[in-house]
């Protein structure tokens, strides 16, 4: 087991109290697994990704532990985490396009980053060139400023840069969201390519777009309002969703071929609860068509079959 996350709770401190953005996540990611995390805005998926590498000032770990390759990560300790960042855990941040320093040439920026980790740029250069070529970029991007590159090119540079030290875990947050469909496909396929070539061991891909995950992920974890809802293989989640939320979410996605006149899709009524004072019991209760009194007690995230988890009283049986 490459990554083991146990009962992780990460809250945001606000003047009105803690916002429980991630409220008890327990899951594992195996070596070589690409796990997709899907959910709507505010479900805690970005918080989950960030907590594995760097908490920002407002976040605090309320409970739980993260173990990578048998070593517990000191996620609550910003300083101590520094030894793991880039080398064992790396991230392609949301809006990675603006992650590049605008006043440095790409090559110089990479060299500064490497030397800050005590790694020689000259020695890494051949491998860097090889990887840039792999994603279809020529060497001269190293001489360019970020402003001279297109969005897709920047995204690829960040991807190569983040994985240069062959991290054990890569967190890719909304990697493809800002890209056009053709670039989106190329960048998403890079994730699989990098895994296959062993540049990264395990990957967590965070996105709101389930159809992208179906293309690249081995397993999908669905989140709702800070809770884990369902986990299973990509095929199981899309073909045979068990949790009512996953079912409704997938049913609401228009696909090429579905037309309004022929088949009218429906959304999910209502909106997610506030996480400042989250409701007791199942958090999807207020919007769930199957909800009954027993849902006032929080359903555990249980294993239904091997590798298949869900948190719902209605599917547990």
């Amino acid at each position, binding site marked *: 087991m490459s990554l083991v996350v146990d009962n992780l709770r990460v809250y945001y401190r606000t003047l009105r109290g803690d916002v429980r953005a991630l409220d008890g996540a327990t899951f594992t990611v195996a070596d070589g697994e690409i796990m997709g995390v899907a959910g709507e805005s505010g479900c805690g998926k970005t918080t989950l990704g960030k907590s594995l590498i760097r908490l920002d000032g407002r976040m605090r770990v309320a409970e739980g532990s993260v173990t990578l390759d048998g070593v517990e990560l000191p996620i609550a300790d910003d300083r101590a985490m520094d030894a793991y960042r880039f080398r064992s855990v790396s991230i392609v941040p949301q809006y990675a396009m603006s992650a590049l320093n605008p006043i440095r040439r790409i090559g110089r920026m990479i060299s500064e980053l490497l030397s800050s980790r005590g790694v020689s740029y000259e020695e890494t250069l051949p491998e860097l060139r090889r990887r840039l070529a792999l994603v279809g970029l020529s060497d001269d991007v190293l001489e360019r400023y970020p402003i001279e590159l297109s969005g897709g090119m920047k995204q690829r540079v960040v991807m190569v840069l983040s994985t240069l030290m062959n991290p054990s875990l890569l967190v890719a947050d909304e990697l493809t969201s800002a890209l056009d469909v053709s670039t*989106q496909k190329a960048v998403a396929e890079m994730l699989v390519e990098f895994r296959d070539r062993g540049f990264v061991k395990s990957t967590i891909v965070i996105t*709101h777009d389930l159809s992208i995950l179906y*293309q690249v992920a081995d397993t999908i974890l669905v989140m709702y309002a800070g809770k884990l809802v369902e986990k299973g293989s990509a095929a199981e989640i899309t073909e045979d969703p068990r949790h009512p939320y996953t079912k409704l979410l997938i049913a609401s996605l*228009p696909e090429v071929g579905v037309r309004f006149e022929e088949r009218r899709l429906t*959304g999910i009524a209502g909106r997610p609860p506030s996480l400042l004072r989250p409701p007791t019991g199942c958090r999807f209760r207020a919007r769930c068509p199957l909800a009954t009194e027993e849902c006032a007690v929080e359903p555990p995230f249980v294993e239904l079959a091997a590798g298949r988890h869900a948190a719902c009283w209605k599917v547990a049986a």
Partner: protein
Amino acid sequence: MLRVDDVTKVYRTGLFGSGSQTAVSGVSFDVRPGEVVSLIGESGSGKTTVGRMILRLTTATAGTISFDGEDVAGYNRRDLRRYYARVQGVFQDPFSSYNPVFKVDRVLGMLRSTYLPRLSDQEWKRTLRSSLEAVSLEPADVLGKYPHQLSGGQLQRLMVARALLLEIELLVADEIISMLDASTRIDVLNLLGDLKGRGLGILFITHDLSLGNYISDRTLILRHGRVVELGPTPKVFGDPRHSYTRALLACVPQLHRKWGDDSAVEANGRPSATADATGGLVAVDDDHFVAPEEDAP
């Protein structure tokens, strides 16, 4: 109703407008009452510019845009006010479309003072209620609230409701659901479908092919400011004739079909149009047009 005829837009760029950038080049199409036309293109294809020209937020460099036979370029202020009473736009970001310190009532009230000054209070209330009903918003849920108290889906539906307060005939919807969550975006999309049933013409601008396919009657594929393919939606998606359209469709991530097994789209590759001397669109089927393939990219 709306007719866009050979419209071109060139932006001046650089110092003192020394450079120029052609955003839209020779685009022609029309929108009929009760019809949804989707304008699909990747970033930089000029789709938003087309919408802005129709709304007279910017002017066309060449070509004409006419509404019921009148050229909108010649409109003065008073004509424009009349025009905006019939044609309205809704844009991508519902969170920045509102003035954050105004309650939504006031946003809607501003529309009343501009366009409907003679309406009595009672009539106004009735109009307000019926247009909120048309977008399935409960008046008590939204009136008297500030924008930050409402969800993105509610704000976007309210934006449409605002347009419906006027008896508009054409709605220009530019990426109106791109920022909404999956579970709520479909409701806004269905709303457009219902409005179409009431005779409203809608220009649906999007980068998302599956959304365009779901809602529109006719589809226009734009690339680098030019129309690549134009036709009834089932034909453009079911039998794409231009290689660019086919390539786009092959890249769309789908839930039940992997990128690898795209043979279905490719195998359907009937020869597309051969170039004619004019470089214009070529009819390949009833009402279905494609641009000639470019030899060099």
